[in-house]
């Protein structure tokens, strides 16, 4: 009933630094004539696809009050497992894909078990996985990129739908819708908000907090696996170094999108906006050919400004 309406209100009035994004786009459009074009629009989409998929998985975790530092490494592990299965072991496409995604989900499952059964803080458990998954990716690949990648997967990285919409953008939007649906319309999704909002109250209300957490981290791992396949598709090779320090970008997208690291707050749309802010920023700096050294200064300043625009606007009301 009121729920879609509430969602729109969330987005416009309080949720997500939409204001920051709009402002940023306006500035870029003025500064660079190449910015406001359809191709560039899809370029930005393609470029944020991998980070956004990681960030969507991360959204589950952050909404539930946790954190997943391992997503970048798990991305690499999933990609390399897939690459190994197809290029080295010579498995057919589907089993290879399942192996890659399975590796991602398995890494997430281990995170979940370490946190619930091992009683580790999420930061520690996923930090350990950050190191271990990267190590495994290196071991499995022998430290070198694995190829060839089968044509259908390479197509996923560079093909288009109807000759216009790049497939990475299609995949990313599908994952976004899936995430929004899980968060808003499924029992596990609602549990994420409850656990993040007050874990003790959730437990005392009979929610199986441990089981839900295991599911949450497994989902994050699975999303990292999808991102790993997509990254492999885009690069046409499986790289053990893929996704290095991506965890910071993924968490940043979620938090810029209005989620709170203390849990209970966050939406798929917010995360999309957060990823877009980061993507538009990098794209714009490239278009403007800003010098390498200054780029980092500008990125820092704009991130702060984009989020501040939003919090100040919210406060004024």
């Amino acid at each position, binding site marked *: 009933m009121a729920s879609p309406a509430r969602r729109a209100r969330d987005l416009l009035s309080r949720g997500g630094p939409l204001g920051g994004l709009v402002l940023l786009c306006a500035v870029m459009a003025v500064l660079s004539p190449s910015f406001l074009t359809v*191709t560039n629009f899809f370029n930005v989409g393609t470029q944020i696809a991998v980070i956004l998929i990681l960030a969507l998985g991360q959204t589950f975790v952050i909404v539930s009050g946790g954190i997943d530092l391992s997503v970048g490494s798990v991305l690499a592990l999933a990609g390399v497992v897939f690459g190994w299965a197809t290029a080295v072991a010579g498995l057919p496409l589907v089993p290879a894909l399942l192996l890659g995604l399975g590796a991602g989900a398995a890494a997430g499952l281990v995170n979940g078990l370490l946190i619930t059964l091992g009683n580790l803080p999420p930061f520690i458990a996923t930090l350990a996985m950050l190191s271990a998954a990267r190590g495994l990716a290196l071991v499995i690949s022998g*430290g070198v*990129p694995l190829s060839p990648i089968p044509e259908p997967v390479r197509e996923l990285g560079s093909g288009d739908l109807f000759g216009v919409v790049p497939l990475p953008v299609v995949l990313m939007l599908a994952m976004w819708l899936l995430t929004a649906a899980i968060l808003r319309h499924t029992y596990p999704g609602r549990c994420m908000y409850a656990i993040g909002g007050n874990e003790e109250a959730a437990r005392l209300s009979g929610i199986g907090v441990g089981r839900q957490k295991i599911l949450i981290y497994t989902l994050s791992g699975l999303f990292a696996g999808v991102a790993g396949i997509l990254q492999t598709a*885009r690069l046409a090779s499986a790289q053990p170094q893929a996704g290095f320090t991506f965890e910071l970008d993924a968490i940043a997208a979620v938090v810029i999108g209005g989620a709170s690291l203390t849990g209970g707050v966050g939406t798929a749309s917010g995360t999309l906006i957060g990823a877009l802010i980061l993507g538009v920023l990098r794209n714009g700096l*490239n278009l403007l050919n800003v010098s390498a050294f200054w780029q980092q200064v500008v990125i820092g300043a704009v991130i702060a400004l984009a989020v501040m625009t939003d919090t100040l606007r919210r406060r004024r009301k």
Partner: protein
Amino acid sequence: GRGGGGGEEGQRTIGLSISTLNNPFFVTLRDGAQRAAQRENVELIVSDAQNDAAQQQDDIQAFITQQVDAILVNPVDSEAVVPAIQAANDAEIPVIALDRGAAGGEIETLIASDNVEGGRMAARELIRLVGSGPVAQLEGIPGTSAARDRGKGFEEVIEGQSAVRLVASQPANFDRAQGLNVTQNILQANPNIKGIFAQNDEMALGAVRALGDRAGSEVKVVGFDAIEDALKAIQEGRMNATIAQQPARMGSLGVENAIKVIEDERVPKNIPVEVKLVTQENVSEFRQ
């Protein structure tokens, strides 16, 4: 005497500190060193500094603690490695530098290829391929010596002529995925780009993915390092050239010279390892 941590009595131990094993180039260097070590029957201990200058100091300190007979170091940074080299000097363990020099301390010899010369070579080849028109450069991690030296040689040559102009130069941090994204963006602002120089092959391969069918034909791509994937791309015509260093040779020369030094033979102060231009014509020579 020696050999506290050095394996069986009588066997030589050499420590090899590598800047990073996350790059196939250095994996090849290590493989070359390991093959030479096997051939010469010495023990080789390898450690990976993961591109962290401080970690490298720690690695070298560990070699000193283990009382190895010689240290091969592939510095993360020429200056940052100095204190560690001095520590080895104090412990009277000879040090040989690989690929990158050291700004101080006593080095028996430097076995390296010249990154500035490689940059120049790449620029000349790109100019030859493009003829005239705008080109772009993909930079490595800002502040690293490879990015500095390769960029310096490349820009020096480009600025010395007027047919080919450098219209965009952006960092992609030696990373393939970033090479892809940044190239897309550069093409957006400069659709008529005729050539791209990437300061390593990883970024060049990212650029190739971004260019799609235009790679190697309409838009020329020159990389650096001659990693396996790049050689394959050149053979297939998706890339045009790269600059080959000879990492395996660097590794084996390192071990061979270390043994000479241990046995008190004299070695020259500089052992240059040629850089070579790899093009479609000669690429087959470089593939194993």
